[in-house]
């Protein structure tokens, strides 16, 4: 099963890696991404800055960088994050456990679509938007959901944003993953302009496990894209996602 898409652009943000040139440098000699850090918030409307969690600021920074005006308000969006706003939920659950009152504004920002919602509010975007999570398979799942949106409306470009921040210390020991603050955003289209990319979902080869990397899978995909290698295999828990450069 091979799905085809056009890549119109990418942008990414991690502490110390704030533009395409920095990411090109990183991809030539990849290593762990920064654990903590946030981009300057001045790109956001003033009224939204205060409510922006680190993840929101990072994901929206990458989204704004890849998607120019006036397209920002016109794209469909898919936000993929394994943990999303879970750190803020944990804070509220701790408040519940201590029988303390919950802040209504904080509660409404714990939804998994908080980043998508603030993107919509900040840009005036009224289009369809999905937010998803899929444990260690969140990267490939984000692409599949992005393709599912392009299937619904092939004429409209799609903004795919993937990112996470470190899980709160209470739960961090339960999850084995590269710890980083990052977002990678892709501007995609069903056809027309852009570089062709194919995503094949193939049966997982028996005994093949995911290689241990010091950086998140979303960064690995970007590393591959910048390295000009023909294909990238990302073995998942159920299927192997194979990214290939398509025929122009």
């Amino acid at each position, binding site marked *: *099963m091979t*799905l085809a898409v056009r890549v119109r652009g990418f942008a990414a943000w991690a502490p110390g890696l704030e533009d395409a040139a920095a990411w090109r440098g990183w991809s030539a000699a990849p290593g762990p991404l920064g654990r903590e850090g946030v981009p300057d918030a001045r790109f956001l409307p003033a009224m939204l800055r205060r409510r922006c969690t680190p993840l929101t600021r990072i994901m929206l920074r990458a989204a704004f960088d890849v998607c120019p005006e006036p397209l920002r*308000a016109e794209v469909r*969006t898919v936000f993929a994050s*394994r943990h*999303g706003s*879970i750190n803020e*939920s*944990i804070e*509220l*659950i*701790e*408040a*519940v456990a201590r*029988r303390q*009152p*919950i*802040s*209504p504004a904080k*509660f*409404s920002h*714990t*939804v*998994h*679509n*908080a980043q*998508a*919602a*603030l993107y*919509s509010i900040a840009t*005036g*975007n*009224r*289009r*369809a*938007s*999905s*937010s*998803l*999570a*899929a*444990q260690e398979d*969140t990267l*490939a*799942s984000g692409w*599949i*959901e992005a*393709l*599912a*949106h392009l299937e*619904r409306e092939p004429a409209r470009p799609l903004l795919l944003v993937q990112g996470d921040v470190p899980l709160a210390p*209470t*739960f961090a020991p*339960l999850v084995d993953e590269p710890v980083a603050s990052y977002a990678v955003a892709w501007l995609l289209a069903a056809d027309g302009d852009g570089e062709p990319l194919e995503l094949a*979902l193939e*049966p*997982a080869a028996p005994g093949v496990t995911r290689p241990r990397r010091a950086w998140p899978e979303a960064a690995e995909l970007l590393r591959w894209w910048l390295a000009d290698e023909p294909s990238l295999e990302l073995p998942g*828990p*159920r*299927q192997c996602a194979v990214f290939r450069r398509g025929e122009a």
Partner: protein
Amino acid sequence: MARRPCSLSALGLVSSLGAGAADTWRRLAAGDSSRLSERSDLAPGRTLLVGAVREPLPEVPAALARYACRNNALTLAALGQIEEPVQAALARFGPGRVGVVLGTSTSGVSDAEAAIAHHVRTQSLSPTFFYDQLEFGGAAGFVAELLGLRGPAYTLSTACSSGARALASARSLLALGACDAVIAGATDSLCGLTAGGFGALQAIADGVTNPMSANRAGITLGEASALFLVTGEPGGIQLQGAGESSEAHHMSAPDPEGRGAREAMEAALRDAGCGADDIAYLNLHGTGTPLNDAMESVAVAALFGERVPCSSTKPLVGHTLGAAGALEAAFCWLVLRGREGAELLLPPHAFDGVRDPALPWLRLAAKGERARAAPPARVMTNSFGFGGNNCTLVLGESA
């Protein structure tokens, strides 16, 4: 519209109305509002009327203990009802061609609350707590591991539109050819976080929710799981249209003009290749909050006038949040499946009967009301979520 068919082939569901299609439909069609119950353990110092599932739930198998939580037990209860067709689909298509797309807004928060309370007291996590119970992706991951599926498996979480959105994406996965069958739907469970959060927003009614009433004062919380086996075949009841929009307005309040709601409904009609006159019944989002009902009634009246019979079923089951879009699509499926000759028996709009004169007049379905709708009929369901995430579905009988 030439498009690959999307058959809602089998339905499993559990809510406060009961477990399974037969009990649910009987109580839904009768407008049985006696199934809500009181809970004093969800919000400190407050007894809440909620739509809790009353049936004992199956246990998550020991081998999958890291997924053991009430949310997944609800999923398991719904999944058990469609085990036979699901296994047949797995045998027919192979595990690599069967996917799962679930919606949830809570995942295993109710169980995580106990673990976090334990942590607050002792500074250590309880040994029965696993992150897989809490993380959103675990809702779909649980089903995939339980059934040995090897197709795409992910969780959509867009607040109260999650369940509708899961069905829309399942349809796209079939159309893309990424799957031959998808288990799609949603599960949400009652927990202290949502009770406390909606309480803090002053959004929970003291008694039963009272949608479209002048006396409406908020939601009644509920829990449910509703799962469909979705296949790319003609016949039966089809998911014919999905319409989506974002509000670009506010985190917890909709656009008062109902612009986003209307855009979602119009997009769903376009996607289904039909017009407003083709809709025989509309299941409202109808949360019973002042803002939702005001904007939804404006949007519905603008699109349908006074013609389409509609109801909110939330006074019967509560607002099941992330599950609501799938549960209410399931109710629409039951309406179509319950066809009586040239008529459809409709779930009544159970409220205090005091219409809000400030809202446009809607044709709210009375108890026992039937819509004249020769086959093939179409019905619609609305879901509007926090952050302004809207999704409307059109279900229809095959021609």
